[in-house]
């Protein structure tokens, strides 16, 4: 399976299908038992650091340091990516602006709500302008306005050449944004392609993605 530059790929599947396991392999937390994961040509097991330079990751549960302010956290991430001071300052200001973090960027993260934490993690993942962005259930905890901001940003960045790999249960979002989707059931990829291809293969012309998804994952034997 290969995801080309500038594509937004959505991985769908029921609970326990293996989406988060796949995501963890894509960011180097899990090593594949067979095969290899390459990010921009760098093997994630053999050369994880070089691969991580190209990667941005937004996990399903935001992890922050409670005793750091949002701005300090962004500085820590920028420093870890070896960004020069001036560039880091500009990028931190840019992302604070993008994700509307200004009001609370200098408060300790321990006082943040889940949505605020998620926005900060998004900002951190965009700091180094990654070539590949991996998102695990990205919209959990975000308010409608933040969802809109994220969607607009993802569209703009994919147009500029960023690759996005996203796992989600929000089928409407996948339908609206994804160039291709993958449907995973019990650890196996049941379908890989565009939604139009899925409709074609399932011979269900005018159905929604929700109906197609339920058909594929129902286990009633009808496979694309």
């Amino acid at each position, binding site marked *: 399976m*290969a*995801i*080309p*530059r500038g594509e937004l790929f959505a991985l769908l599947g029921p609970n326990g299908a293996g989406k988060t*396991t796949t995501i*963890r392999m*894509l*960011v*180097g*937390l*899990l*090593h594949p038992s067979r095969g290899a994961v*390459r*990010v*921009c*040509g760098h093997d994630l*097991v053999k050369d*994880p*650091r*070089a691969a*991580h*330079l*190209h*990667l941005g*990751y937004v*996990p399903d*549960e935001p*992890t922050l*340091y*409670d*005793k*750091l302010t949002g701005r*300090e956290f962004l500085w*820590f*991430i920028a*420093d*870890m*990516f*070896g*960004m*020069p001071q001036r*560039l880091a300052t500009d990028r931190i200001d840019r992302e604070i602006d993008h994700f509307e973090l200004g009001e609370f960027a200098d408060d*300790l993260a*321990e006082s943040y709500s889940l949505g605020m934490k998620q926005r900060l993690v998004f900002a951190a993942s965009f700091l*180094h*302008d*990654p*070539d*590949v962005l991996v998102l695990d259930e990205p919209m959990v905890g975000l308010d409608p306005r933040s969802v809109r901001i994220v969607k607009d940003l993802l569209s703009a960045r994919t147009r500029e*050449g*960023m*690759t996005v*790999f996203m796992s989600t249960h929000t089928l409407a979002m996948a339908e609206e944004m994804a160039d291709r989707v993958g449907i995973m059931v019990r650890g196996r990829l049941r379908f890989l392609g565009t939604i139009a291809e899925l409709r074609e293969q399932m011979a269900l012309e005018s159905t929604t993605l929700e109906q197609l998804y339920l058909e594929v994952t129902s286990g009633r034997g009808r496979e694309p």
Partner: protein
Amino acid sequence: MSGRALPPEAVRLLSFEDESRLFVKLRATLAWETIRSMLSDARLRLSLVVLLSALFWAALYGLFVEGFGFLDALHAEVISLLFNAFFASLMVMLVFSTGILVYTGMYCSPEARLLLTLPVRAEAIHAHKFREGRWFSSWGFVLLGSPMLTAYGVVRHAAWPYYVVMLPLMISFVFIPASVGSIICTTLVAWMPRLRLHAFTIGVTVACVGAIGLGWSMFSQARVDSMSAAWFERTFARLSVTEQKLFPSWWLSMALIEAARTERDGTLMAASLFESLKFLALLIANALALQHLAGWVAGIAYRKGYSQLAGEIPSRRRRPLRWFDRALGHAGFATGRPLRLLLVKDFRLFRRDISQWSQFAIFFGLLGLYFLNLRAFNYHNAYASMIGYLNLAVVGLILSTFTTRFVYPMISLEGRRFWILGLLPVHRDQIVWSKFLFSFFGSLGPCCSLVLLSDCMLGIPWSLIAQHELCSVMLCMGLSGIAVGLGARMPDLRESSPSKISSGFGGTLSLVISSLFIMATVIAAAVPTHLFLLTHTLGPSVISSHGILAWAGGRWGAIAGGLVVVGLGMTATVVPLVLGLRAFRRLEA
């Protein structure tokens, strides 16, 4: 996944030094922010903790001065023997505790998950988490060791260089077992992930069997000549296993003993100091080499081990002791069922958390071993009574470390599950009471049994055994009350690590108050008994000339002592629990 082959603009991989510098900066920022928030929000609490800790340190110092003075007069070589045995056992404990802390920090914490997705070396992450593990596992050694070694220096009239090298010696020593613990941990997780529990159990068993064998070989033989020169010689020979010249504990002992040596006129002995510095250099060299090795092993094994562990599928084996849970859940009236179900949950969590029951089993097991061997010595009545009270205090002190480490954080950890508990038809008071009952009944059996064992081995009369048992019941109750009450009064709902919760202010305060409570209880019970024994051994005239002493040494004194013990126990239970219940009712999750 595709993208540019070259890294994004202006992004680069850092050198190991730069990565380490960033982690040190991060640690400093976090520490400073923690101190700043404590200074602004909890000045009184901070002052109280500092003051009580200073008192605790001073009390320990006084105790060690007395102890070293006694041992110095008895046998000079005993100090060397004690240092070797103490540091060798400490070395083993530091290996285990650092191993456990490195395991939780590197493989189970959300921070590790974040760091592993950044372009950072595994070695740098290891160094960062190892620093944390080392600190958490060794602060107790520094707290206990500094008054002990200072007292030794004072008793030996050591010159100033002794005090200068003392801290570097302790710190460099700590690095060695800590690095070994880290190496064992990362190796086990990477190459034997499914066997890590078994390997840990085998390690603990080997350590315990070794200790039991050593203890048995020392105390199982003739008891008539105990504490005699011949007995000491035999004991020295058997304890020589801890005096191996290849053990870092021996280097530390020798360094301290050499550094404390002075000429007869009290001036510095240059040759001894030089010898001590040689041992310091040896310790530092080994500490650095082992730390380097631990980093190298982590570089190879960390990511692989993390992957192995994160990819592990939980086993669906049968859960033992289900009958106990069912019996506890269904016994009694329906009104008490929520409380009993909370208790069942806590017992289940305790059984399934190896870090809790293993430490409990190790410490109480070792204490049991020591008590089993008490009969090897011949005691006079007064000695037996004194040792009985000291044993009671030791049981209390060990229990207090457990209540602080495991019971105190329970409410804080429960707070994280407020969304579950808050929606259940359970009154908040019941949550607090369930923790108290869990701690009280859980500790009652082991503590009372140990005290009974100690007293039987010492041949103490039944009246005193009854008094000791009363004391241990009060200690279990009071220590549970303090830990649960303060845990509810000062919960830390944001922290997920119980070790961090217990090492915070509330935990430290709980430990200090617990220690004071134990001291007060044991003194209240021991003073009348001691006076009573004095009356019977030295004759009534010595005591009867002092009215209050005569009264305290009589029957009424014993009754008053018992009442004070009960009063202290009730106060230590009720006051913190009332404060905790009030605060917990008002708590907003």
